[in-house]
């Protein structure tokens, strides 16, 4: 655990607002990007981001001294995303509709609108085409640099299950990206 992180945890345990602000500044982009790519909705991602940090703030004094804030926040965000997904499904059922499709046809989602190039657009679409369980693992390992073991702890799964999801995500991404896939995947 890095010195900064240890100091932030100590500050949070003492209920210091300054420590919270530093943690928010350090992690907000990462958690928000994860939530945007999982929910495919910026408004929902903002709500879940706020709830994630609210839970951190409310639990501040009960944190263990060796808490690793990255995995902690991703665990909270993951659980909130699961609850949000269930609520969306219930809402869709009550409305008499099938769950909404994430992206229809060639229409650009707000997330895809961030892409500067065709390559980035293809990449966003490739990630979006993954089933949420595969996308989540691909994002946490690929974007966040977490190990499969850390991701297993966050998602409450066995590391082997995470490795299998990772392998399936790789195969599906390689198919979706074709010539744009990493060279090491194309030669597989």
């Amino acid at each position: 655990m890095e010195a900064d992180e240890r100091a932030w945890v100590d500050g949070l345990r003492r209920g210091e607002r300054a420590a919270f602000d530093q943690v928010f500044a350090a992690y907000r982009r990462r958690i928000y990007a994860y939530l945007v790519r999982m929910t495919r909705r910026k408004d929902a991602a903002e709500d879940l981001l706020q709830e994630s940090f609210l839970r951190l703030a409310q639990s501040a004094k009960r944190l263990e001294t060796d808490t690793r804030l990255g995995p902690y926040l991703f665990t909270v965000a993951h659980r909130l995303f699961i609850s949000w997904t269930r609520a969306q499904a219930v809402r869709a059922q009550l409305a008499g509709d099938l769950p909404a499709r994430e992206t229809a046809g060639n229409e650009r989602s707000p997330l895809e609108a961030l892409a500067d190039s065709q390559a980035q657009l293809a990449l966003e679409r490739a990630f979006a085409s993954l089933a949420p369980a595969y996308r989540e693992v691909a994002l946490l390992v690929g974007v966040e640099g977490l190990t499969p073991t850390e991701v297993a702890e966050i998602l409450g799964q066995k590391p082997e299950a995470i490795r299998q999801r990772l392998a399936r995500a790789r195969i599906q991404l390689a198919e979706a990206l074709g010539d744009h896939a990493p060279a090491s995947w194309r030669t597989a």
Partner: protein
Amino acid sequence: MTTTDDDKDVLGLAELSRELPPIDLDAQSADRIARRAGDSVGKGPSPRRFIEPVLAAVIVTVYLVWALMKVLELLG
């Protein structure tokens, strides 16, 4: 699955992820969220979140007691 396969998955994903466009909140939303969440540092969850389950438990208990008394009344 081998370690080499795992490495290939992880390295390829890391390579791809570097190409993804960056995503961030606008400054106003970030400030709002930081302020709202930050005001709760060390305060614990609001007591209001416990009111609903307590009320539900009270209502269910009252109903069960009432039903039990009715059954006893019929038997007695």
